[in-house]
């Protein structure tokens, strides 16, 4: 088994223009499973907080009877955080403000199926 089972998913995401980091994170633990980061980025911090945010968004949507969260986006002056969930894993992308969110969304949703497949093999 590869030491980096999610590398093809993460590489495809970080190839997108203005994407600065991509991480596979355990939703329950908020721990990085695998990541593509730039020097100086704190993967652990982003992972813990983004996973917590995604989990709360998922639970809020469920409580409001909205069904499953398909895509979560957080917009801040310095950039965006996008996340999608697959099983117990969350795929998180950090990007600069100029990023094409539509493209990132398509890539993330496409990656979820692969994430579930690889996650199933790893488990």
């Amino acid at each position, binding site marked *: 088994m590869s030491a980096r089972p999610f590398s093809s998913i993460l590489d495809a995401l970080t190839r997108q223009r203005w994407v600065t980091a991509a991480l596979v*994170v*355990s939703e329950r*633990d*908020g*721990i990085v499973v695998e990541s593509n980061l730039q020097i100086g980025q704190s993967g*652990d911090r982003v992972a813990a*907080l983004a996973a*917590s945010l995604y989990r709360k968004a998922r639970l809020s949507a469920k409580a409001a009877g909205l069904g499953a969260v398909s895509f979560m986006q957080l917009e801040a002056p310095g950039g965006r955080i996008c996340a999608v969930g697959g099983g117990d894993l969350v795929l998180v992308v950090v990007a600069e403000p100029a990023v094409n969110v539509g493209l990132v969304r398509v890539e993330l949703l496409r990656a979820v199926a692969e994430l579930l497949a690889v996650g199933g093999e790893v488990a």
Partner: protein
Amino acid sequence: MQMTVVEAWIEGPLKRFVVDAGAELALLLHPSGQVLAQHGFARAVDVMSACALAAGIHASSSELGRQLDGRPFRGLHHAGRTRQIFLAEAQSPRGAFVFLTVFGQESSLGLVRLYFEELVNGLAAAAPPVEAITGPALAEHFERDLNRNLAVLFGRA
């Protein structure tokens, strides 16, 4: 649930940790087992037991780390069905402390580790100058000091 501290400078950083990490229980102690601060405990006897167990686990896991890896293990995590325990050493200008926290499904190990780092930094920043420190806990005064600290925490001082 109320937080109580033996020394006032601990309260700010510990309160921030409890709020940010969503911890249910938190305990800061000297590696000897002397309690310094608690959050979420209702009874002195529970604090006393938790301190004794945490100090014992910290001592044995440190030694296990030294035997296996040449240096002590710094953190320990145990995930239960609904609650999890995180136990780690917090270095400060006043020496090493042991920190124990219990958290539920509202939090996560990642968040706890993240805010534990901030707690350590907060304690380092808030610690009074070293010359103002009272002497270390001595074995012959252990029970007296423990009873005094528990009395301070649970309002019987």
